[in-house]
């Protein structure tokens, strides 16, 4: 019998996406404010559905390169508010990358922080990762705040190292090591432009 991987927090259940989640995900996936910072862009419903289907299949980390994606579901009423994923980027060095997206309606209530924290816990304790990182655009203040609140270090602040849709980008990398997680990382206030 195949057991489904599920994570529980105070207010959330993180579980694999199901076919019946399609409408809920499409509800936020194509919104400009969500699209802006997504890696997998969707220009229309067709592309968004393709992205959803890909995420629905990301149910386990078997080999490097694999991604596991969870729906972020509010326990009190079963509302699907967003999704969070962990990509196993390097097996030898035990590295992973966390990504997340939240519907704008459900932001600013700490759900994202709670979900990403659960993902960090999963990555470090269940999957024995040595380092977990997250990449965010320089202008994405809410995400930057979320990652800092979890105690992640600003490891990189790349300026204009790639063109993105005709404009120079600004990319920030946050990271945490397993030993920092174990010791209970405190919220980290990065001095902007100054790498830790």
């Amino acid at each position: 019998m195949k057991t489904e991987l599920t994570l529980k927090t105070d207010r959330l259940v993180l579980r694999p996406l199901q076919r019946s989640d399609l409408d809920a995900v499409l509800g936020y996936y194509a919104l400009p404010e969500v699209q802006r910072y997504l890696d997998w862009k969707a220009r229309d419903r067709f592309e968004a559905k393709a992205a959803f289907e890909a995420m629905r299949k990301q149910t386990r980390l078997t080999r490097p390169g694999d991604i596991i994606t969870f729906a972020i579901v509010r326990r009190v009423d079963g509302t699907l508010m967003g999704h969070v994923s962990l990509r196993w980027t390097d097996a030898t060095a035990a590295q992973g990358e966390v990504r997340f997206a939240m519907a704008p309606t459900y932001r600013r209530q700490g759900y994202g922080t709670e979900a990403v924290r659960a993902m960090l816990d999963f990555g470090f304790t269940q999957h024995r990762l040595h380092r977990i990182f997250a990449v965010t655009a320089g202008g994405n203040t809410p995400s930057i705040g979320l990652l800092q609140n979890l105690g992640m270090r600003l490891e990189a602040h790349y300026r204009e190292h790639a063109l993105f849709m005709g404009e120079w980008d600004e990319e920030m990398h946050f990271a945490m090591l397993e030993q920092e997680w174990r010791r209970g990382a405190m919220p980290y206030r990065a001095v902007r432009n100054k790498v830790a």
Partner: protein
Amino acid sequence: MTQVPLPLSAQFVPAYPLLTARLCLRPFTRADVDAVYSFRSREDVARYLLDDAMSHEQCAEAVRMRTGQFAFTSEGDKILVAVERREDGRLIGELALIWRSVADQQAEIGFILHPDAHGQGYATEGATALLDFAFATAGMHRVYARCDARNRASAAVMERLGMRREAHLREHTQVKGRWDEELVYAILDREWAERRSR
């Protein structure tokens, strides 16, 4: 100065030899093997490099490859120049410029000096000439450099060049059997131009 046969489709090539106040930057020749071995064989030089200390044979092979690496034709190409001290003609090190991205106009610069030539500003002087080429001739938008976080001398050169520390990566990979700690410095074309105009 010997004529260098250009690759047929070379897009950007330095006007060799690049002369600075005290240095001459030029393509490698097979006569450089012993000089390269004099610093590439040393543990104290290899300590902060991705490469291990090299044997004479490995240096000969490296130099053989470098005799063809002196121009930018396509993405991934490396320009590897010998750094010669003008006053005595001694080969004191090497400089590298790697074309990391054509679309994003990004290059990486690197430098290795013989320890006897440390502390005299040669790396800064040579890198300045190569950065002039990268920005003014090859049209790069951004040039970055990486070093081991423990390699303070290298980081100091990057800072003296006006580069900004953009990353301090900890334990993101293993190098030579131990956790790596890496600094990334970078500078943009407009920042370099502003510096050079002062």
